[in-house]
């Protein structure tokens, strides 16, 4: 064991996050020992020190093994800055809104802006920029490590954006089933004043919540069904992403109302089941999906709008 050599190999190992790095180091050890003996006729700390110096810095040696192993593909360099910029614009808009209305803001699952004063928001924004950069870098890192070829969206801000494919064509059968579903839910609501039940006994159904909560949440659910049916009907005549975007926006507002119910809820369900816990978990999942659907449709509508502007020019 030679301290010089082992310290050097430890430093190379530090820069070498590869499987099989122990074997690389063994080969390096063997090579340096042989080279030292060949060049200086003796292996000791002094001669090893000279041989190690000739071999190069540990970082440079490790980097030679890492050629082609990118943390983020060089092809995504522009994406890193553009996506960070877009996120930061969104983050800044949320911060200003939160400050203006004196409330906290949330876009699931990534954004949370707490309530704060104007001065505090100035301190918050640099941190938001670092967060946005980190989040973008993390996503691009995952895409790069996945090794597949990915064509990430590249918004061109009204000029030259690709026209997206239209949404799936709505059919009359789809509309009919949606209307029947809506009719059934509406009929249940008008008969029982709720669509949430603790039992499924048709003769004597027990509502899950107290009357006020039953009415509130049932109306929200009916409104969701109504928006789905209305959007579907409009799409029969004008099938575009913007129609779905408006519908998704309405659903997000309805979900916001569901989260911000202005009363205490009394649950009549079985005691051994945590009904509110399940309902909250379901609502979180639904909100995440609705937020994702809204953002996706926002991008598609944007591309749709930009291509229409281009065609009219």
């Amino acid at each position, binding site marked *: 064991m030679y301290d010089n050599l082992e310290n050097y190999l430890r430093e190379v190992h530090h820069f070498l996050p590869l499987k099989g790095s122990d*074997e*690389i180091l*063994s*080969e*390096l050890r*063997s*090579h340096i*020992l*042989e*080279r030292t003996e*060949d060049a200086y006729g003796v292996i000791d700390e002094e001669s090893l020190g000279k041989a190690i110096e000739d*071999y*190069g810095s540990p970082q*440079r*040696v490790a980097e*030679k*093994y890492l*050629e082609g192993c990118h943390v983020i593909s060089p092809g995504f360099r522009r994406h890193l800055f553009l996506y960070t910029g877009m996120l930061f614009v969104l983050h800044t808009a949320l911060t200003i809104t939160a400050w203006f209305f004196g409330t906290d803001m949330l876009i699931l699952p990534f954004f949370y802006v707490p309530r704060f004063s104007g001065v505090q928001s100035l301190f918050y924004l640099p941190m938001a920029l670092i967060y946005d950069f980190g989040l973008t870098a993390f996503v691009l890192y995952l895409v790069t490590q996945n090794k597949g070829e990915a064509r990430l969206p590249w918004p061109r801000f009204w000029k030259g954006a690709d026209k997206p494919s239209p949404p799936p064509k709505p059919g009359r059968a789809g509309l009919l089933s949606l209307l029947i579903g809506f009719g059934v839910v509406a009929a249940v609501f008008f008969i029982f004043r709720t669509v949430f039940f603790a039992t499924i006994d048709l003769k004597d159904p027990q509502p899950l919540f107290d009357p006020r909560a039953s009415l509130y949440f049932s109306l929200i659910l009916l409104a969701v069904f109504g928006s789905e049916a209305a959007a579907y009907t409009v799409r029969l005549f004008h099938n575009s992403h913007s129609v779905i975007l408006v519908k998704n926006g309405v659903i997000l507002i309805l979900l916001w109302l569901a989260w911000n119910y202005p009363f205490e809820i009394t649950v009549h369900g079985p005691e051994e089941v945590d009904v509110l816990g399940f309902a909250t978990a379901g609502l979180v999942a639904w909100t995440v999906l609705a937020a994702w659907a809204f953002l996706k449709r926002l991008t598609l509508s944007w591309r749709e709008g930009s291509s229409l502007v281009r065609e009219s020019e």
Partner: protein
Amino acid sequence: MDPEFGHFESEMNRGFLQLFVLGMLDSPTYGYRMLKTCEGLGYRVEENTLYPLLRRLERMELIQGEWNVTGGRPRKFYVITPLGRDVRVRLLDIRRAQNKILEKLEQGNREEDGHV
């Protein structure tokens, strides 16, 4: 050496070295001996370029490595695989074709200079 020229040289060497290594491994040999062979042929190869290359070629299954203790020292011996031989033949064809193209280009340039 002019640093910019050094960059061109290392770019050219990169492809050549792969072919050269594949050409040296018909019988098992290890890194240090390969470097000595290169030096004997008048071709200088940096040690910290050769070993990462050997690792890449091994990962691509063009060569195969095996540890052996000879002269009291553990050494990793490499030998070309059948897949490596196929690749070597194809790379040699490419290299020959490139050389012919360069010769034609040079000849064309010389003739042009002669006319001027």
